[in-house]
């Protein structure tokens, strides 16, 4: 598995297809986050923006390899493991990106509530931000896994489905990502920092299920 992950990571980094989502994320943060704004609010924004980026990274990883090269790897390691390596690589890339953004935002923001009255400790805010980021990265990967190859193969269906699902899982009540993000946003009003592991746990379960479905179907559907 280590060899597969290393191969997929090299493919992702060298292909430079990671550039558009990363640049878009940077622009999104540049527009929405400014230094001196309340920290929890900005962290909520940072986490929510990562969800579609994580889904996009999954799309890059599962469609980036030319089919013939993929066939060689699948023959060596089996369809499920080859697909899992691509999904995990994308998830890992999203987590790294989200962590970097969260740390940066935590440092540059004002450590206070929206009305500047109550202080918000940087360490606890950063921890809450990381948990929300993790939940969004996991849920975004789950969305990407279920809306791309092998489930949806034509880009005409996969891309709109992916964008719609990413939007819904960011805003729909009941989604772990929405819970994590709204926890940060309301915390920025009230001064109560949400460090609950529940949204992350739910996102882990959803991502595991989505990855399992995608890996099991790889090799069964047409190439």
């Amino acid at each position: 598995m280590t060899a597969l992950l290393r191969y997929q990571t090299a493919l992702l980094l060298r292909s430079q297809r990671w550039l558009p989502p990363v640049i878009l994320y940077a622009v999104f943060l540049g527009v929405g986050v400014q230094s001196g704004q309340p920290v929890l609010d900005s962290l909520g924004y940072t986490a929510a923006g990562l969800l579609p980026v994580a889904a996009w990274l999954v799309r890059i990883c599962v469609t980036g390899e030319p089919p013939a090269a993929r066939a060689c790897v699948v023959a060596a390691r089996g369809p499920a493991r080859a697909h899992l390596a691509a999904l995990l690589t994308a998830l890992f890339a999203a987590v790294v990106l989200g962590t970097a953004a969260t740390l940066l935002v935590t440092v540059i923001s004002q450590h206070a509530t929206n009305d500047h009255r109550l202080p918000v400790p940087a360490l606890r805010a950063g921890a809450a931000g990381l948990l929300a980021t993790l939940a969004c990265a996991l849920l975004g990967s789950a969305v990407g896994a279920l809306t791309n190859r092998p489930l949806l193969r034509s880009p005409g269906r996969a891309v709109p489905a992916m964008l719609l699902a990413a939007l819904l899982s960011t805003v729909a009540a009941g989604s772990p990502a929405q819970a994590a993000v709204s926890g940060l946003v309301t915390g920025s009003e009230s001064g109560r920092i949400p460090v609950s592991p529940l949204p992350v746990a739910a996102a882990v379960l959803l991502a595991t299920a989505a990855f399992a479905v995608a890996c099991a179907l790889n090799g069964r559907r047409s190439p």
Partner: protein
Amino acid sequence: MHRDLELVRVGRRYGIRGPWVLRGVDLTITPGSLTRVEGANGTGKSTLLRLVAGIDTPTEGRITGRPRTAYVPERFPSALPFTPVGYLTHLGTVHGLSRRTAAARAADWLERFGAGAYAATPMAHLSKGTSQKVAVAQALLADPELLVLDEAWTGLDAEARAELERAVAERTAAGGAVVFVDHDPRRLAGVPDATHQVVDGTLRPRTGQVAAPVGPHTVVIVQGPAGGRLPADATRTAASAEEPAPGTYRLTVPVSHSDVVLRALLTARPPWHVVTVSAPDVPPDEKDRP
């Protein structure tokens, strides 16, 4: 490969209500065997090979005894962001080699196929033939127990085609199984242990072997210890063996397998003496005629 790869009543269709591409396929691949699959275009040869290689999962039926497998596609993309040696090192580790061994073998196999000069050229700049050499090297570098070749010879130059035939001979001699499809009927002619035909979406052993084409042969004359018997590997591979004088044998061997036979003879205990290696005076298929 210690046990057989078995396909039992295997069927495959694309899509839930799609037509069956293959159905009711029974096939056993034994270690050390060479299997040829034939069939017209679009009959499902490639689908069968993808099932044998484990790339696709059968829609019905089952496949048991999966060995360490390597696959060579017909057309290999050069749209990979690596150099050949970098790609092969990655694939070697995916096949289970250590990084160091993978890198060393990558260089060796590229050299063997005459692509050593391109080892550090970005793959996007490679010609179609050189890309195909990388695909072949990818499959051979980890000594797979099962090698699946889907028209792997297409696009290779003459030397590389002959080298791939020799590599196939080495693989089967080392106990690995090889399954291949090729449009050239002279490809490894006379060597396969089994030939199957894909007809009407199912697999049949080829019958009516009237005019199996005979490929080029090499004649090897060897002397052994008094009363010695030819090593089993040599007898199995040779097309014919005569004993013109006691202890001296005249072996007719497919050219792709001459190295394998010589290796078997020279590494036998006690070793055999190779007297001559030459092209046959009369093509064996003509000589056999009355």
